[in-house]
């Protein structure tokens, strides 16, 4: 048995999640002209959100592999729950 905990970002289904800093978050929202809650959400209890230590109010940058575009960046707003 392999003892150590598996890093979920190693898994092929889990895209890269990056926690945005305060400045990056402000810049992004300004560029999109959106309120944070207008982004798609991710729950604070989500395994991927927990792995990067995201807390409610943060914005997470996700770099997905896409079958149509190759790679695409999306953002999710961390909500409680």
């Amino acid at each position, binding site marked *: 048995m392999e003892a150590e905990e*598996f890093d979920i970002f190693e898994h092929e289904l889990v895209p890269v999640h990056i926690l945005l800093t305060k400045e990056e978050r402000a810049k992004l929202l300004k560029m999109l002209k959106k309120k944070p809650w207008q982004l*798609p959400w991710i729950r604070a209890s989500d395994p991927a959100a927990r792995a990067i230590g995201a807390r409610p109010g943060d914005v997470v940058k996700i770099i997905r592999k896409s079958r149509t575009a190759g790679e695409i960046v999306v953002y999710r707003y961390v909500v409680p729950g």
Partner: protein
Amino acid sequence: MPEDLERYRRVMENAGLPPKIVEEALRRLEKLPREVWGRFVEEVIKDYESRLVEPGEVVGVVAAQSMGEPSTQMTLRTFHYVGIRELNVTLGLPRLIELVDARSKPSTPMMRIPLKGEYAKNEELAKQVVKEIEELLVGDLTVRYEIDPFEGQVILYIDLEQAERRDVGLEDIVKALKKVRNTDVFLDDPEKGIIRVVYLEEFSYVKLRQLKDKILSVRLKGIPGIRRAIVKKRSTGDGIEYYILTEGSNIRAVMKVPGVDARGVRSNDVFEVYREFGIEAARQVLIDEIVGVLREQGLDVDIRHIILLADAMTFTGRIRQIGRHGIVKDKKSVFARAAFEVVTTHLYNASARGEVDDLRGVAENIIVGQPMPYGTATLGAYFYMREPRGKQVKR
């Protein structure tokens, strides 16, 4: 020359083309004479832009129709078999409904388990992994059982051949059964494989039957939930690769088994994937599963429609079903909700709560007989009858 390519790459990237299209364009660019490069790139950008969805397009309605029509052609029969060794899989319309309804358990959970290194190359090693994960219950080895209501005991007749094939000795079974509470276990006849389980408390026939059920579901080995596992092979670029398909799903336990390539373990249970890997992974599984169902039925639906569906189901960070308990429930418009299901309930509750419908969506405007706000009709002009005093009024 490479600087030139680099320059055109930047031109296309700045125009907002996705990486995949940029790569493809550059690949083709290299085969063309240099004089036309500029024009070619220009054409690519123009073509890309002409294919973008226009603002105000009713993408949801288009997606719904694009998936709805083909689904009328799907088989209504539930069961299909994968491969000769018959793994039972729900496909076709029932599976599609299961997915969009976001049922918490698929009717036929399945896993696809890739193997690491040597395990993937060697069929014997792969079979060892199967033995490790396939769940084996006492009931699977029992040919026949008897309930003795006079002495208060259950007698099991074990299939010795089967037990040997699965590497289980009678002692193992006895040991496992000792964990059942309030009982005593006796190995009556090792030759014939007869095991007697005596109930130690006051017994009744009903209690003995419950005991029997408990005994038969005692797990001897394997991973809970994995009812069957079979080795499949697939030819890759450099030779043959073995992987495992299972009936039943248990991601967490399977990932810990030696020989399993944890990075590629997949399950068709969307909610289990959500619990283990999060919303992004669940979204991907939803897309892959729906594409799989449609493709298996020979239907060709553009993946963008399916992506939109999966996005709609997952953008609240949880999996929402397409229906009155999920996406439709969250709609702001009373009429749009009422138009879906249980009309009177929605209208009654809305009036009791004094809800207001802004008539901004498609469904509610069809109901009241107005043009739908899509395409150019998304825009409107507002007039202020009075001169706005001082600062400008927005919107």
